[in-house]
């Protein structure tokens, strides 16, 4: 047991937690911003995959990290906008449209991978990667230094993004509009806000976050693209954001909880602890947290309205 504790509470362990959390923080912010605008976005899975692929291909053919980054982010925005177009303009249900787009991403990336590079499951050519770097002052702090310093630059961008999310959401007019639209679209409309446009912007920004997460996966975490490499992170992001109440710091903590558990299962897999069960804990916890949140939100509203009033159902109502 003491060796277990030693290996878990080691510098390497916490370093790994930050590394594993990075591709969860980005999409979780994407889920959070769409949730703030009143939509559940389960399409981050596909957005990440498309961006991971675009980044690798562009980096192989242009050998420019900057172009790869721009192309990846552009593909994410495009995908987010496409989801918005189908949901807002063509009146598709956003859940079903996102499922379809996830399928599309999964098929299209492999289809193009085979057609462009000939590789069946992974890109044979190695992609450029985002650099890692040490932070001068931070590095020399005893225990914290080796944990916080020396990461891939995208890990720092992820933490910065949490701050950006906070600023956009709570300190800018756009953030105010997004929250207004999410809380009460009719009221927002009545003061002249273009509800559909605001929701579209939220989806496009979530595309940026998702793209950064995908780019980190294929061009930082590893240096190639492989089949379905996002591996459910877009769905975990839904859990992480939900757990954090879609707030900036909460979403960060939610993502890091999943990062922590995923890292721990790697560490304990050699020991006699059922790692499968350990891995299921954060998902179960999310269900419980979600149930408590909604029970709390539900109770006062029910009393006020005098009857069971389901805002969620109204959101899903068929549009004429």
């Amino acid at each position, binding site marked *: 047991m003491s060796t277990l504790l030693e290996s878990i509470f080691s510098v390497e362990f916490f370093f790994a937690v930050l590394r594993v959390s990075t591709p969860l923080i980005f999409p979780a912010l994407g889920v959070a911003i769409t949730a703030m605008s009143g939509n559940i976005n389960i399409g981050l899975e596909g957005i990440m995959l498309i961006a991971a692929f675009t980044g690798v291909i562009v980096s192989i053919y242009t050998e420019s990290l900057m172009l790869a980054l721009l192309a990846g982010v552009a593909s994410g925005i495009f995908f987010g906008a496409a989801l918005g177009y189908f949901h807002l303009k063509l009146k598709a249900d956003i859940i079903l449209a996102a*499922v379809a787009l996830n399928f*599309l991403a999964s*098929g299209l990336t492999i289809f193009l991978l*085979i057609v462009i590079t000939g590789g069946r499951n992974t890109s044979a050519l190695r992609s450029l990667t985002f650099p890692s770097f040490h932070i001068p002052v931070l590095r020399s702090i005893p225990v914290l230094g080796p944990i916080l310093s020396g990461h891939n630059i995208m890990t720092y961008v992820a933490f910065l993004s949490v701050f950006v999310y906070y600023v956009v959401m709570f300190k800018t007019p756009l953030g105010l509009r997004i929250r207004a639209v999410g809380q009460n679209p009719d009221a927002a409309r009545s003061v002249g806000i273009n509800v559909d446009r605001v929701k579209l912007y939220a989806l496009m920004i979530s595309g940026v976050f998702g793209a950064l997460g995908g780019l980190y996966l294929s061009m930082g975490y590893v240096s190639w693209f492989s089949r379905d490499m996002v591996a459910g992170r877009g769905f975990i992001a839904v859990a992480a954001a939900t757990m954090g109440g879609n707030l900036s710091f909460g979403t960060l903590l939610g993502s890091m909880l999943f990062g922590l558990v995923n890292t721990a299962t790697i560490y304990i897999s050699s020991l006699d602890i059922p790692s499968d069960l350990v891995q*299921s804990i954060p998902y179960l916890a999310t*269900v419980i947290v979600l149930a408590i949140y909604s029970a709390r939100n539900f109770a006062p509203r029910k009393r006020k309205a005098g009857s069971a009033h389901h805002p969620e159902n109204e959101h899903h109502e068929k549009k004429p």
Partner: protein
Amino acid sequence: MQQFLLKNFDAVRTAIAILIGMLICVLLIILVSSSPGDSISIFLFGPFSSQRTIASIFEIATPIIFTGVALSIAFQAEQFYIGAEGAFYITAAVGTAFAVSTSMPWFFHIPLILLVSGTFGGLWGLIPGYLKARFNTSEVVTALMLNFVALYAGLYLINNFFRDRAAGFMVSFRLPESAELSRFIDRTRIHWGVVLALVVAVWAYYFLYHTRTGYEIRTVGHNPKFARFGGINVFKVIIIVHILTGAIAGMGGMVEIMGIHRRFNWQDLPGQGWDGVIVAIIGRMHPLYVVAAAIFLGYLRVGGQQLRLMSDVPFELVLVIQSAIILLITARAFLSQWEARMVIRQASEEAES
């Protein structure tokens, strides 16, 4: 003609979406293949080329009929319970555990296994169902989470208690023969599960369109407010659709094990739950059309396999087409202007006459 189009507009829309999907597919093949003509004919006619390929269409369709019909029930009530994947997986694991630890004659064993797996699947569906009905917790998120829980719990159960260590890889013990659904066509893997799937589909059709509860389910889907003011117990409806969806999808998972694999060999979520979403959409959430949609999906998949074997076009072409098709079908406003114009024209013609 116009009247016919208007009356069946949903079917027309679906047909056009499928047509556009197939058109995209032909275009993509022309773009990437060195001999497009051959590739197109391999894709379109390859699935009918031998008894084996025709059989695989139905082998692929069988589990998807279960999940597709299951999801149709939830979707008809506008409950976006996307947890068929998890229910399918964990019920197969639990059902396998039950099947390998019991032994009795097949005419008791098979119904009992189906009963156990149906019950377990129903309970699994009840979790998001109760939370949605009672607290309005989003069934989308809870179902997504429970898919992961199903995966890890299923792995834990099989790998720790029912793992066949004599087999070289991570699989469960083989099912006893009394628990196998036998294959009834020589040299194919078509098994009695396909008949069960059809029975379930017909029952679901009857239930949704010819019973009082079915009517209530559809009313809740069309207009929950109206349903509530009309005296329908929405709580009960939400609970029922989740239980049924979990039960049918779960039973499908166990049937797949009993008919095809004969032991639990999934180390990851197998994907039939998501395929169920596809066929529920293409079949417009009508259980009988879902059967046709599942066979269509089986046809596409076998066509894709033929492409992979015999041409230079990747299998993934199929994933691209199927997502294009369901995107167009879910888009409610797709072709709605055309419909509106026809309605106006029809109305003005009637006014003139």
